[in-house]
């Protein structure tokens, strides 16, 4: 099993990082540009670090969907069918795809944080390791949502549309652009069911000087959200695979 997963992972990584390197660079550069934009807008000593991190979360969602597009490509060019005629199992294929997307996501977060800390020398008001932990967990949620997306549709265009609706919807309702506390009460209640709300709440606490162990409830909520989306994705994938086999 491990051999198969490693083989697929290597192939996926090669394809994503070498052939689609421009997309990777774009997705990593965009949040940095937005951060520069916010810092340029800095007025009366107020840093816009929070909103900059909100934008970074939005781009993590976009990148998660873009990394999982590989599965759609495989289905379109019938590579998926050819892989499954070998001894590779369906779960091994999906595991490799998810692992590949995870590696890319971690790499993207690291590139962003590294550029912010060492190239731009910015102080966002949060410890970078703590920030990485929160971003990693919201990244896992993004990946689980993207996995659900590829299980729902096998059309590249549809996935793109879903990715825009989800990434922007989650970012806005989750308070990535504006604080949830400033929103009307009804929207605040809806925001509780949006994973990005918990990530932003965690970041808000970190900005207020809380330690990482004080935000375990927010991290737990993100883990629960990602598990829910993964389970839902697996359920839908199993159902569609059964239909395909029959």
């Amino acid at each position, binding site marked *: 099993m491990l051999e198969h997963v490693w083989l697929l992972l290597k192939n996926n990584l090669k394809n994503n990082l070498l052939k689609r390197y*421009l*997309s990777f660079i*774009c*997705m990593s*550069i*965009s949040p940095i*540009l*937005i951060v520069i*934009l916010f810092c*340029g*807008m*800095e*007025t009366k000593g107020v840093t816009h670090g929070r909103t900059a991190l909100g934008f970074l979360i939005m*781009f993590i969602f*976009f990148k998660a969907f873009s990394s999982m597009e590989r599965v759609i490509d495989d289905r379109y060019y019938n590579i998926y069918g050819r892989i499954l005629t070998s001894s590779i199992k369906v779960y091994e294929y999906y595991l490799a795809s998810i692992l590949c997307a995870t590696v890319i996501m971690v790499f993207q977060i690291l590139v962003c944080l590294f550029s912010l800390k060492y190239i731009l020398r910015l102080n966002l008001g949060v410890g970078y390791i703590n920030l990485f932990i929160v971003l990693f967990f919201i990244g896992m949620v993004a990946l689980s949502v993207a996995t659900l997306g590829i299980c729902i549709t096998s*059309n590249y*265009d*549809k996935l*793109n*549309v879903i990715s*825009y*609706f989800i990434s*922007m*919807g989650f970012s*806005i*309702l989750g308070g990535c*652009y*504006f604080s949830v506390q*400033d*929103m*009307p009460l*009804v*929207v605040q209640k809806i925001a509780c069911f949006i994973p990005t709300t918990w990530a932003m709440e965690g970041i808000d606490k970190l900005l207020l000087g809380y330690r990482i162990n004080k935000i375990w409830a927010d991290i737990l909520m993100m883990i629960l959200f990602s598990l829910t989306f993964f389970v839902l994705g697996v359920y839908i994938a199993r159902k569609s695979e059964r239909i395909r086999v029959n």
Partner: protein
Amino acid sequence: MNIMRQVLMMWKRIIIGNFRKTPWTIFLSFLPIFLMIILGMTTKNSFTGISSFQYYGVVQITFMALYNITTCVNYVKEDERIGVLYRLRMARISSLKYYIINLFGFLFLSALVTLPSFVVSIRFLGTKWGNVPAFSYICILSLSAVMISFGLLLTKIVNNVWSILDIINTIIIPFMSYLGGAFGPNSFDSSPVLKLLSNMSLVKWLNEGIFSMVYRNDYSIIIISLIINLSLTFIFMMGLVIGREVENKLC
């Protein structure tokens, strides 16, 4: 008569072909409505003097006009892939004619796709578009024309257009629309570089033009924006003509 028939056939193909590809059409028609509603709702308490629905009603429609470039590039590349361009050449339709017909075809498509969000903004969200809403609509279409002509030029001069489109979709459009105020009103007074960049954003001029037309009855900015957009469209189309001549010489 024959030319008219050819033009109508090609327009029919663009419009029906793109409406069959429902996901992207849904995206361009309904994402602005979705964003207008949720951004308007979430920032209801943050705006003073102007309603949040008024602000986002305008800026989200202009923001979405930028994505016409993707529709256009996708379509032309698909045509190249299935060999439509060669077949058109055999039917004695020059590539220049093909591009001009495409420009107007996509403009018509853009008008159809923008219409639902425009109507929703007026009827349900109470967005004001000035004394003559049709004029604002034409100005939005002028921005679409810039993006469509730029997309057509890209398909002609760049080999790996997908990489460029990646950069446009993930960096240039979000960055320019942000500078133009698509995610909230901005002020770049503290940074001269950003102020200069925001002045280069076509969306910013269009948004500002519409707001000053609605609230101050001042048409000067919107007319400047319209002239800039039309000039850029003309320049990009000229680029296509020059590209065609160079191609002919090489042949």
